[in-house]
């Protein structure tokens, strides 16, 4: 093991395209975050709705997906949806796995988004919903105009935590044949086992750089957006 640590890092970055692998994680995180936010909001509305059957469906979804390991969901997307059922989300062979992974990540994290939003709903005083009903608003209008806008502002911090978890969990997409950071790390360890510490540091630092801004941003947002009562 000759040369300094710096030389090892330079050699690694020359041989392997580390930024490209991280870019895949950013893409996975971005699209899965959007999709899970939409799905999670729908689930949260279902869970606070007056209809018992909708509440039951929302609760079941959350309990099933929150308690299923993400790896199993991703592997199922590939071996079950694509392998057995022939579900194809993109004409390109590799892009198909990226989209299947986004689907798996979104389905899993929607359960956590739903629970984060429900915690935000708990910050909204009951009087708000009662007042909305008193002026004649139905459930959906109450949720859309009164409850959710306040709930989102109260749920910024837990939503941020979910986003941070999603960023790190995007590495599980390697189990679904997506060439992202953790897959590249395995390749690098296989070929350059002599500089394994430099490899670990590269990926540890990479994720620190990705995740810290999210944490800082959501913390400051959660302070600024909190509804003063």
């Amino acid at each position, binding site marked *: 093991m000759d040369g300094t640590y710096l030389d090892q890092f330079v050699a690694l970055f020359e041989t392997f395209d580390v930024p490209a692998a991280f870019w895949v994680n950013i893409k996975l995180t971005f699209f899965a975050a959007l999709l899970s936010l939409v799905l999670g909001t729908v689930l949260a509305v279902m869970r606070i709705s007056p209809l018992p059957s909708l509440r039951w469906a929302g609760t079941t979804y959350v309990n099933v997906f929150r308690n299923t390991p993400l790896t199993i969901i991703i592997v199922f997307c590939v*071996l079950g949806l694509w392998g057995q059922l022939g579900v194809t989300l993109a004409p390109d062979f590799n892009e198909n796995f990226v989209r299947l992974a986004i689907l798996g990540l979104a389905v899993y994290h929607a359960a956590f988004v739903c629970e984060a939003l429900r915690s935000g709903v708990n910050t909204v005083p009951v009087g708000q919903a009662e007042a909305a009903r008193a002026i004649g608003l139905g459930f959906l209008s109450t949720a859309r105009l009164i409850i959710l806008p306040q709930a989102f502002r109260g749920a910024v911090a837990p939503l941020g935590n979910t986003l941070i978890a999603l960023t790190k969990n995007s590495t599980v997409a390697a189990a679904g*044949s997506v060439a992202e950071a953790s897959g590249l790390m*395995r390749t690098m360890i296989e070929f350059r*086992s002599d500089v*394994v*510490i430099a490899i670990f540091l590269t990926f*540890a630092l990479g994720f620190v750089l990705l995740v810290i801004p999210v944490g800082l941003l959501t913390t400051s947002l959660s302070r600024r957006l909190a509804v003063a009562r």
Partner: protein
Amino acid sequence: MRRRTVGSAAALAALALTLTACGGSDEPAGGATSEETSAGGGESIRIGIKFDQPGLGFKDGDDFTGFDVDMARAIAEKLGYSEDQIEFVESPSAQRENLLQTGQVDMIFATYSITDARKETVAFAGPYFVAGQDLLVAADDDSISGPEDLEGKNLCSVTGSTSAQRIKDEYAAGTNLLEQPSYAECVTALTSGAVDAVTTDDIILAGLAAQPANEGKVKVVGNPFSEENYGVGLPQDNETCEDINTAITELIEDGTWQQILDDNVGASGYEANEELNPPTVEACA
């Protein structure tokens, strides 16, 4: 999950090293090799194997089976260890160097190919087997007889493996590569028809094909296109390399090697490449 834990632990350790200005030192933490000489004695020996490679290194309940495991047992016996002194430890590919350097295992039998990059951090005895990269296909598939026939077909391998990389570099034009966490998933994809072939070393494929669940459904093509020298991974400051080499030579000469091979992967009809096997051991560096 475990990978992340190990990763952060290693990162922390590395950080600590750098902070105490010891960076750059590649000394293994503590001289933890427990065994002294070939005489053995009361000490037990920790041997790293794979737990998930049927036919080679496989944990079946409390039993360990496979070619690597039986070779490890036979060699440990020659070194003076009885059956109950052997402790098998799981050694996934990504952790092999780390396990040896930190003294958590005394030797590794885990389809461990001897390469120059690995020799920078660990030592090897052997080789005790020469495998070659090959293809596993459906039993009724006659359209694939080598890597050239993969044009436009779907191929499965394990994420980060040398085999996947070789296919990408040398035969990738027009080959769709599916990367899975382990070969079990690849065989599932193969038997369901999602992929046309699975690639890795022939003996690993033979082990998979010999599994009762897969018997008759898949076959090894038998046209190896690389040379993988399986060695016994050892810490660099070992004193056992010469003795292990002697033991390997003895096992080959008295027929035990062939017996172990037939017992473990013979059921698939696989026969080791005769030009290269049984191998001649290399001198210890």
